[in-house]
């Protein structure tokens, strides 16, 4: 085999024959997936199709029943400091007394660990992360005083503050109005293209996903994926269990670009 060029693609994530069951129910069946530096992967699929479960497995929060996941060549739980995570709609008390800056600092935990206190470097990283998402001027505000879209940017900053190479986002635009959604996807594009973060975005928002991502996969217990942004009609029919016509033309299920 040829030696790798220095600028060759680094393999970030590798999933081989992953099975996850909950009781008798098979949630994920024989999932295979590879991700390289610079990838921006969108995973779409119906509700209950196992999207969040797959993300949790990538984070090492759920143990596979069979198969293997490695992130940066490590078991996921040991790669946490290189993964940034934006969970599905963070539910918190809107009057929770915490400043934006301190919310972002929370993301440093994966680097500094238990007992240690935040230092000047951590605070500096928090400000840089807020700058990266355009929220630096909100640093001293209370988190509950921000709009939904702004809060979501702060949670992205929190995931960026540990300087991860891989970002995992679980339905990040749920509950955000469409203007802010567009801005949010622009931000993700910027993080991917200009800062070189590999991104895995899980969403049911098919239109948006197919516009911004570089690769797309469809998940409903099985993963339909061809390392590209194209999915065949057959894949989608299998995953959604309904004819492509409905998916391509029906508003809730649109995944393909409109016909030229």
């Amino acid at each position, binding site marked *: 085999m040829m030696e790798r060029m220095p600028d060759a693609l680094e393999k970030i994530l590798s999933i081989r024959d992953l099975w996850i069951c909950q009781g008798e129910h098979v949630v994920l069946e024989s999932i295979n997936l590879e991700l390289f530096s610079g990838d921006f992967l969108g995973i779409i699929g119906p509700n209950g199709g196992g999207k969040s479960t797959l993300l949790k497995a990538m984070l090492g*929060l759920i143990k596979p029943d069979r198969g293997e996941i490695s992130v940066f060549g490590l078991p996921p*739980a040991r790669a946490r400091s290189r993964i940034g995570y934006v969970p599905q709609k963070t539910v*918190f008390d809107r009057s*929770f*007394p*915490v400043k934006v800056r301190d919310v972002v600092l929370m993301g440093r*935990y994966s680097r500094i660990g238990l007992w240690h206190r935040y230092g000047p470097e951590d605070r500096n990283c928090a400000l840089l992360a807020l700058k990266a998402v355009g929220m630096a001027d909100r640093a001293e505000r209370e988190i509950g005083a921000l709009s939904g879209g702004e809060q979501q940017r702060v949670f992205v900053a929190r995931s960026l503050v540990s300087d991860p190479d891989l970002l995992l986002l679980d339905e990040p635009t749920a509950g955000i109005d469409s203007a802010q959604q567009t801005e949010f996807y622009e931000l993700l594009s910027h993080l991917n293209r200009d800062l070189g973060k590999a991104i895995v975005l899980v969403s049911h928002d098919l239109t948006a996903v197919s516009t911004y991502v570089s690769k797309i996969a469809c998940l409903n217990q099985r993963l339909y994926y061809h390392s590209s942004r194209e999915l065949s009609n057959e894949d989608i029919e299998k995953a959604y269990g309904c004819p492509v016509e409905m998916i391509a033309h029906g508003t809730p299920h649109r995944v393909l670009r409109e016909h030229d």
Partner: protein
Amino acid sequence: MIELNFLSYEFMRNALLAGLAAAVLCGIIGIYVILNRIVFISDGIAHAAFGGIGLGYFLGYDPLAFGIGSAVLTAIGIGLTSSRARVSEDTAIGVFMATGMALGIMLLTLSRGYARDLYGYLFGNILAVTESDVLLILILTLVILVLVFLLYKELLLLSFDPIYGQAIGLPVSGLRLLLLSMVAFSVVVLIKVVGIIMVIALLTIPGAISRQHMKGLPSIMAGSVILGCVFVIIGLFISYDLDVPSGAAIILTAAVAFFLSTLLTR
């Protein structure tokens, strides 16, 4: 001078020391109770502690130490039951709470001279706090202060967003058990001061008022501690002056402050 009078009795000095330590404790732990929405759990722990107190009496050992033991066991029991078994958390609390009370009442009844002490544990009798109680309370307060100081960022993350915390490697279930245990310690200290029935008021009112006026967790905690101390001092003074039960006097002081503060902030 009336204040000097007030402090010239040893039992009054003990009462004041215990009350102030309790105020510091509930000022800080109470905030976590509010933010983590574990008010009902805390109340359950307080009631369950009564079982241990009864057992201590029955066996002739220090009731307070036994109370702490059963409170911590209950805290851990509730924490584990709700995360492992198919029993919802509030059901588990209801069961632990009633069992503890029943056990306490039965064991106290079987012991001699229960009536006065039963009253004291249910409604608080801070004037009966002994020097060894004060020592125990001060040690507990110190331990909890140190833990909260060392684990401040962890507890903040746990309270704000445990799901995210778990995802980035925070030992969420361990921390939650630790928090519940700290609540258990605080609750037993408070039982001495205001009694089982009113524990929850002193645990939540100072924090609730402080939250209405302060911003940022450290300021809210400081405000809550100061308010707790003020309520204890005023309540003790009223109790001494009017010869009414100290627990009720402290809680009523706190309640009046709460209603005034809520009216003023609206």
